[in-house]
């Protein structure tokens, strides 16, 4: 039968199922196929903290949303155009996010009395009018997969498990995706079990062929490649990009990277990734606790390595005393906080930006550190290098504030030319620096205010440092009041003096009177909302902070040149408070802490309201 082909400029698909249904993998593969085609992409995985929550229940629903378009996009999309629901729980958990008219592909095999009852459906929503207004495609995914694999040498259980590949095949057909990379992926994944390669490939093809032959799907869609900067791309998550940034920092500094880490969601992937790259001289240590992880990293920095520790909010709290020691020792240290919803254990797999105050102020004494935050998954690569650059050049702890949204979300990444990455080489102290031939461990470089990095093993520079207050220059223990005052001010001044790029303002028409200021992972939703407003003729300017300590030198001037400043944050107004305090600007906060990123729509609506009063 001939299918109609329809062109679209953008599509948002959400794959949803039980945590054991392989939805993350399905979404990941669809994303990879889409990347191969050349669409711009943004993804958002959403999964429970439980490894296997009770099957078929609402808390066990795992989903993966992918937004792809023939133009450059900034977010994983507000509302799905298509929902793939592998069971009643997946349908119920996601239906509210769907606009009327959306396509719903349901696995009818799972709509049993028992499964319906588990999530409180009295009757099957497929049989009553509750899905009126949606385009429902009932597909017996499980039984058709099992049927298609009847000739395969696999158990019924393995055949049933391949149903996600059937779904992927169907969606790949529906959106005309190139699937060679998926076939290659299956061969790699099941290299040791050829019968599973065959079964999954067969399931994928069965899904594709089903789309082509069934009457249930009369339209096939195409989304043309986006116009993107020429070059080689890969799709990358924030955690992967951040890991590669740390590898790159090691290469560009010529120093061994030492990662001390304790497993914690959502940061563990960085430990996993860096553990694979020993050939770069990277040492990873899974420490006994968060404190040991940062302690070992600091010990390694003392010995001349690039010491790094990766964690999430609860871990940063535990590391705080050691970070203060690093402030006193003035040694390089990179602390990565992949933020999650708190306080306490909070919602470990959900996103939030509520560790900004902790990053800026969460230590005892006056203990300033540099703080930076990546704005998107691929930006995590460059942010990691920037964190390393500041740590190495200015001999300071640097807090890198990622969050679950950028860490697990993905987007296309234009691969950088290695030679174009910053040169991070450092010079260790090799000779005494005092007039009388002595070594002064706290004699500062007049430019950077950094003290010499004199690593053990250097003859003639034997010296003792510690957490006790040190005398200027000599580093000897000092309780002198004036010296302490001087050292406290110097530690503050040396962070303030770190040169960071000016904040750039995006105001294409140059006539905006409203500025939206963001930081970290809100860049995408804010950017998308601003674009929509501008398309509707409503001028609005966007500025985004990557450096939160020190802040860009031009920020005050930028803030004061607008009538109104709005600061959307996934916290209760932490940056807004800093901005108000530091610049005396009457910024308005817009705050949501739902564990989910902002949607562009809600920001658009909010900003439109604000504009009425500007």
């Amino acid at each position: 039968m001939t299918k109609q082909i329809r062109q679209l400029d953008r599509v948002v698909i959400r794959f949803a199922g039980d945590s054991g249904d392989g939805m993350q993998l399905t979404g990941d593969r669809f994303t990879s196929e889409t990347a191969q085609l050349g669409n711009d992409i943004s993804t958002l995985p959403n999964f429970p903290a439980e490894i296997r929550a009770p099957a078929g229940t609402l808390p066990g629903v795992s989903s993966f949303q992918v937004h792809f378009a023939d133009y450059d996009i900034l977010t994983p999309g507000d509302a799905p155009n298509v929902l793939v629901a592998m069971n009643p729980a997946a349908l119920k958990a996601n239906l509210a996010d769907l606009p009327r008219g959306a396509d719903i592909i349901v696995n009818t095999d799972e709509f049993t009395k028992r499964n319906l009852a588990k999530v409180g459906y009295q009757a099957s929503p497929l049989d009553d009018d509750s899905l009126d207004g949606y385009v429902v495609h009932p597909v017996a995914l499980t039984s058709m997969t099992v049927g298609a694999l009847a000739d395969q040498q696999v158990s019924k259980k393995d055949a049933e498990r391949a149903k996600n590949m059937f779904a992927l095949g169907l969606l790949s057909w529906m959106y005309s995706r190139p699937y060679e990379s998926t076939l290659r992926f299956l061969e790699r994944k099941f290299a040791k079990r050829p019968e599973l390669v065959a079964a999954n490939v067969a399931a994928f093809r069965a899904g594709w062929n089903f789309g082509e032959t069934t009457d249930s799907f009369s339209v096939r869609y195409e989304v043309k490649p986006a116009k993107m900067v020429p070059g080689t791309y890969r799709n990358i998550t924030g955690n992967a990009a951040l890991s590669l940034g740390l590898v790159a920092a090691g290469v560009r500094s010529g120093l061994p990277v030492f990662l001390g880490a304790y497993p914690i969601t959502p940061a563990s992937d960085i430990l996993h990734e860096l553990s694979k790259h020993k050939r770069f001289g990277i040492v990873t240590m899974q420490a006994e606790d968060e404190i040991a992880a940062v302690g070992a990293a600091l010990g390694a920095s003392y010995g001349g390595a690039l010491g790094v520790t990766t964690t999430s909010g609860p871990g940063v709290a535990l590391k705080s005393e050691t970070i203060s020691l690093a402030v006193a020792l003035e040694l390089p240290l990179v602390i990565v906080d992949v933020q999650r919803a708190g306080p306490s254990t909070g919602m470990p797999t959900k996103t939030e930006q509520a560790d900004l105050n902790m990053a800026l102020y969460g230590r005892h004494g006056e203990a300033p550190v540099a703080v930076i935050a990546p704005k998107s998954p691929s930006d995590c690569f460059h942010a990691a290098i920037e964190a390393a650059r500041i740590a190495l050049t200015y001999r300071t702890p640097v807090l890198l504030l990622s969050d679950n949204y950028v860490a697990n979300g993905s987007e296309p990444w234009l691969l950088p030319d290695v030679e174009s990455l910053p040169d991070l080489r450092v010079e260790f102290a090799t000779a005494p620096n005092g007039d009388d031939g002595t070594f002064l461990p706290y004699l500062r470089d007049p430019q950077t205010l950094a003290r010499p990095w004199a690593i053990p093993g250097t003859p003639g520079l034997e010296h003792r440092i510690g957490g006790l207050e040190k005398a200027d220059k000599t580093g000897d223990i000092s309780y002198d009041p004036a010296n302490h005052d001087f050292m406290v001010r110097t530690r503050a001044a040396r962070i303030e003096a770190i040169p960071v790029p000016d904040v750039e303002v995006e105001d294409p028409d140059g006539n905006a009177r409203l500025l939206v200021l963001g930081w970290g992972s809100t860049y995408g939703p804010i950017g998308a909302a601003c674009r929509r407003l501008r398309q509707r003729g409503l001028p609005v300017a966007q500025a985004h902070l990557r450096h939160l300590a020190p802040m860009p030198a031009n920020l005050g001037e930028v803030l004061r040149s607008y009538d109104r400043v709005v600061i959307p944050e996934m916290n209760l107004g932490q940056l807004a408070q800093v901005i108000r305090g530091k610049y005396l600007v009457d910024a308005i906060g817009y705050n949501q802490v739902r564990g989910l990123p902002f949607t562009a729509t809600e920001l658009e609506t909010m900003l439109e309201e604000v504009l009425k009063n500007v």
Partner: protein
Amino acid sequence: MSEPVALKLTAKDFKSDQEVRWCPGCGDYAILAAVQQFMPELNIPRERIVFVSGIGCSSRFPYYMNTYGLHSIHGRAPAIATGLSVSRPDLSVWVVTGDGDALSIGGNHLIHALRRNVNLKILLFNNRIYGLTKGQYSPTSEVGKITKSTPAGSADAPFNPLSLALGAEASFVGRTIDSDRKHLQSVLRAAAEHQGSAFVEIYQNCNIFNDGAFDQLKEPATRDDFLIRLEHGQPITFGAEGRFCVVHPPGGFGLEVRETASVRPEEIVVHDATVADPAYAFALSRLPGLDLSNTPIGVFRSVDRPSYDSVVQAQVEEAKAKVTETPEQQLAGLLGSGDTWTIL
């Protein structure tokens, strides 16, 4: 490594220019002098020696050593030293700690350093009291200890540091006493020669807050009957003319002290620090009574086990050995790995 050259260092070379500020009469002075005098024996250049400490009286130690030194934070010295040692196998890394630092706030790091067998020499100065905070009971204080924080007597049972270290399967465990310089240096020597974690408990007198805690082990009138001097390969006897001995009673789990005259010579345990099962050294660590009678000193255990540092470095070296590209080429390859696409 090139041929070792005799460095001809002396104790004086290991004295820093800092004024030593422990209380007059503190046992730490004797330990410092013994360590400074012992260090030249290592024939390691001063710049390759690092002392790392935590917080407490003992943790001021690094300031007085003319080596590299890091006075860190409470309890964390083993963790910090682990990062240093693992990333710099060329260094000789020593941890100086106390009973509160190592066994209370830093207990977790201590046991994990020992189980990993990190190449650290850990000297625990045990004075069974908190000195720097002015006299609270410590995790090694005896039950019922009356201090400022326990006016009615402490209610909790103490750790036996050696039992704890052995429970963590430390590959080297020893004990010595601040006032016996010769013995202290003999244990340091054995510790320094050991590859992996060496844990040494040093009984140290705090003459301000817990004076005389170890007097029975020091007074000429009592020490010979109280101290069991362990010597590898020798039957364990002690007291005047060896009138006591250590036996392994049939049917029992541990070791016991008997009058030598009451047992057959072959029943006397011959000390073997290399016994693989830590149960033997553990039994030795359980011999002392509450009054410090039957206190073994010397090397309890010294067994060969790969150090964490060596295993980690071997993995890195093995991975690096396969590399033929420059780091930049490797990086370019890594960045471009996985599914990529090109836009022209």
